[in-house]
């Protein structure tokens, strides 16, 4: 096989910020963001000199693979006969014209009575005009910049932007592109501006608000490698970029990451790992590696209490014992498996045999609408559960986890830092991530070829995805869902959504002493409108960029995650949370 090129990460994630400045997405799971100049990241870098929240840029790199066994090497201009890399990205936001988000309805196709957003606009041309589509942008060499803005339209693309009278924020850009000296691309997202064309602006619900737009987006990332001899080679395996809300606790991971979810879909439906699942059967002789496949799940459990009011003690798992293959610890492993909710029973909050609360104590894909698709509590994926079952049977290996080739490590890290559930709708991507028809290969979104304006009002997975087709399901505007997805009543209990992506309770450092307080809102009355959230969603539209980040001031062995860089005053006495 000839040499070929791939862009990594397969799915890169940029995040909005109200600062012109940016940092780069972490390139390890639970890693800190990176600074473009290579300095080590400090808590002060979450914001710029004016305390505005820095955007997260998604950095893409072209890798060259000499053959199927080649771990891959980064392609750099000036090396190996490569003159430069030309990058092209096309961002769009199609939320305003897609179906309303109603929990899981639509995952297996939309019903004929499923409402569209802004359904009162019926003229197709008018609807197309509601797509935010600045068109593609191209950079042809290192050190260049271009924006997806009304003002920066070098190719005179027939751009569509929302009306100019949006309140409280106008949308003039979806972000921009930068190239660095090493030929890598950085995709930047929007400013976090959301606004309504209906005055005064009101937010009526968590996911579907008529007349609203936000400046998140997504789209294809492609590249051409230009050689010194003038040859041009299209990178065969292109990438995709998602623009999502900020990550306020970048060092913590959700119990189910987006990588887990997509991996599970490919394992169960596409034969990605026949050693785990083949011919419809779970392979019971599969031996997971404790450090690589089990411990990461348990570590996420250990760290949840830094961002939500869960009892730290029972979550303080003893990894030395749990990873010790001595049979004396089998009972302990089986105990922990017994408190993990099996994926087949997402509506079971407590075990009906032991009465113990099943984990995770987090809301599921659908706790909002009764019906056949009800799924009240989050579960680990089937593949995660299988791995945990094997572990509880003492079928696991010890020793170091296998290292991934560098490109795959970037693919994985990018997705590990995203939410893999619950999808109601989620943060970066929703349940469409479980649909294999959107992919051309594992983790690779299938690109629609020859996209010409105007972008489509519909979709055709067989042809591939257009700009905006991954994110169009998400909440409109994202801040509404981000505010409300704090707590969820299920039966007589209050479950949490994604504490890692949307913190609920954080610790503040008061003279060396840690105090647990709400991230947003009050904590006295669990039924109150402002219980651990803003009393109204529209406050989040202007308040998200003032919230604090959760940063590990301790070490990996003895973590101490505290809130830093908050610019929103806490109501009541200084630093006072109260019950």
């Amino acid at each position: 096989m000839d040499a070929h090129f791939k862009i990594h990460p397969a799915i890169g994630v940029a995040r909005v910020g109200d600062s012109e400045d940016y940092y780069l997405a972490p390139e390890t799971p639970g890693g800190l963001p990176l600074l473009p100049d290579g300095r080590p990241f400090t808590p002060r870098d979450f914001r710029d000199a004016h305390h505005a929240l820095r955007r997260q840029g998604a950095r893409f790199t072209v890798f060259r693979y000499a053959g199927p066994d080649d771990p891959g090497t980064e392609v750099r201009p000036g090396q190996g006969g490569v003159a430069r890399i030309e990058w092209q990205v096309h961002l769009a936001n199609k939320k305003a014209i897609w179906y309303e988000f109603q929990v899981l309805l639509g995952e297996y196709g939309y019903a004929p009575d499923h409402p569209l957003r802004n359904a009162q606009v019926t003229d197709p041309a008018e609807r197309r005009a509601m797509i935010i589509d600045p068109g593609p942008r191209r950079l042809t060499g290192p050190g260049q910049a271009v924006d997806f803005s009304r003002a920066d339209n070098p190719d005179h693309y027939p751009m569509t932007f929302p009306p100019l009278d949006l309140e409280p924020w106008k949308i003039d850009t979806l972000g921009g592109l930068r190239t660095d000296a090493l030929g890598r691309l950085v995709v930047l997202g929007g400013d976090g501006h959301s606004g309504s064309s209906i005055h005064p602006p009101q937010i009526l619900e968590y996911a579907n608000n008529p007349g609203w737009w936000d400046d998140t987006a997504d789209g294809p990332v492609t590249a051409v490698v230009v050689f010194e001899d003038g040859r041009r080679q299209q990178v065969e395996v292109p990438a995709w970029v998602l623009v999502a809300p900020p990550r306020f606790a970048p060092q913590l991971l959700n119990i189910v990451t987006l990588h887990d979810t997509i991996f599970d879909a490919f394992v169960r439906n596409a034969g990605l790992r026949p050693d785990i699942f083949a011919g419809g059967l779970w392979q019971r002789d599969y031996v997971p590696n404790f450090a690589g496949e089990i411990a990461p799940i348990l570590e996420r459990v250990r760290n949840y209490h830094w961002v939500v009011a869960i009892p730290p003690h029972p979550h303080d798992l003893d990894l030395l014992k749990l990873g010790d293959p001595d049979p004396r610890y089998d009972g302990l492993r089986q105990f922990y498996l017994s408190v993990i909710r099996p994926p087949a029973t997402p509506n079971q909050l407590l075990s009906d045999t032991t009465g113990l609360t099943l984990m995770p104590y987090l809301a599921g894909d659908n706790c909002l609408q009764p019906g056949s698709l009800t799924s009240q509590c989050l579960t680990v994926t089937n593949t995660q559960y299988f791995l945990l079952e094997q572990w509880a049977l003492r079928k696991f290996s010890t020793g170091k986890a296998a290292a991934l080739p560098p490109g795959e490590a970037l693919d994985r890290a990018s997705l590990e830092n995203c939410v893999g559930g619950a999808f109601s709708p989620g943060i970066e991507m929703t349940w469409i991530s479980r649909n294999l028809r959107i992919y051309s290969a594992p983790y690779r979104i299938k690109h629609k070829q020859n996209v010409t304006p105007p972008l489509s009002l519909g979709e055709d997975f067989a042809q591939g995805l257009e700009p905006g087709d991954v994110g169009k399901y998400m909440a409109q505007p994202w801040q509404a869902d981000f505010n409300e997805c704090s707590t969820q009543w299920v039966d007589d209990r209050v479950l949490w959504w994604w504490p890692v992506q949307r913190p609920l309770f954080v610790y503040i450092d008061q003279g060396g002493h840690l105090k647990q307080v709400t991230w947003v809102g009050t904590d006295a009355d669990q039924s109150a409108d402002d219980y651990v959230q803003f009393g109204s969603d529209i406050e989040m539209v202007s308040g998200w960029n003032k919230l604090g980040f959760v940063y590990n001031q301790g070490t990996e062995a003895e973590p101490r995650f505290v809130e830093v860089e908050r610019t929103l005053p806490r109501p009541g006495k200084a630093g006072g949370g109260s019950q």
Partner: protein
Amino acid sequence: MSPIQLSQPARKRYQAIRSLPELQAHLQWAVALELSTIPPYLCALYSITDAANVAATLVRSVVIEEMLHMMLASNLLNAVGASPKLSGDFVAKYPTYLPHHAAGGPYIQLQPLSPALALTTFMAIEQPEASPNVPAEGDYYQTIGQFYKAIELGFRHLVAEHGEKWLFDHDTGCQRGDTYFGGGGGHLVVVHDLGSALCALQEITEQGEGAAWPQPPVPGQEPFGGYESYGIRQDGSYGPILGVPWELSHYNKFKQLAGGTVAVPPVYPMQANPDTAQLQGEVRRLSELCDACYGLVLSALEKALGTRDGQVDFFGVAFPVMQFVLPPLAALLMQTSLLPEADPSLGPNAGPSFEPRTQPVAEIVRLAADLLAAPPADRGSDYATLWVATLGPVTAALRQAAAVAGDPAL
């Protein structure tokens, strides 16, 4: 005919703890006291037909904390040079009185949960002190809090008399800090000086009777803690609560059951104070199996708390048998009518008698396997199905424990 005596009976006087053997004796009583509360609470818990019920959650949280208290008392005892005994006279035989209580205390019986049981027995066990300034009482105490106060004064006295180092140099090295997995608050403290000893004692008394406040504290007035456990909040909902002793105390939890704030759910019609000796046939052997498993747990715990490397005994035997063997066996007994022809939904039914039997683990496994192989024929197919569904996993868990204990039965 002897004349009627009008003299006052001699009143038992408080004898302050003045010597190390006295302190050790009191701590051994403390271990026995904590242990004696566990079977009646477990009986009440296992009697609830829906294990996921709110009342079950409340009772379970208390039982798990009593186990923590027993572990804390054991650490205190090991810290001053003796290891706890969980055998012989230190294990209560039910019905019984609270060990060393001045007036006998509540008459403790093994019964299914009821508001009356919560009121007359459980709240009485966890009775708070009448005021914060009640005197210490050692042997013949009125409240458990006063008993622990005597122990606290004993620690303070011995430290003042002989020094901290002298006292805690007696440490047996058998303390455990890794055996508490409960979802409630509290910490398993390893005791190495007066400060940690007082901390361990405070964990026990605060979670038990709680602070002697008659009412909930005013919001914002309670001492601040982290959100260390879940329970019924002051807003009436279930969720994270601050570490407020009033809300978390066992006394207050049982008060909610006694007063109807938390409804008592349907329970199995278990006969009070089950007695293995009064049973016949397979049911008797089933009850013997349950007693043997209880005995196995106690002997494994005694070893785990009396040896420096108690890992196998605790993690390999005691923990899995407590977790995967005793609860299903108790539930099966409680669904077994005393008369084969009676309707088990009406009872009266058998129940765990908590009479520890000492039996080699290989024999216990064999007994379980024999029972599994021969479900009773005279109780209908539903019962036989329940029998097999219960004893299958129980036998497997016992086999695993036997193998870990180096006693691969069969």
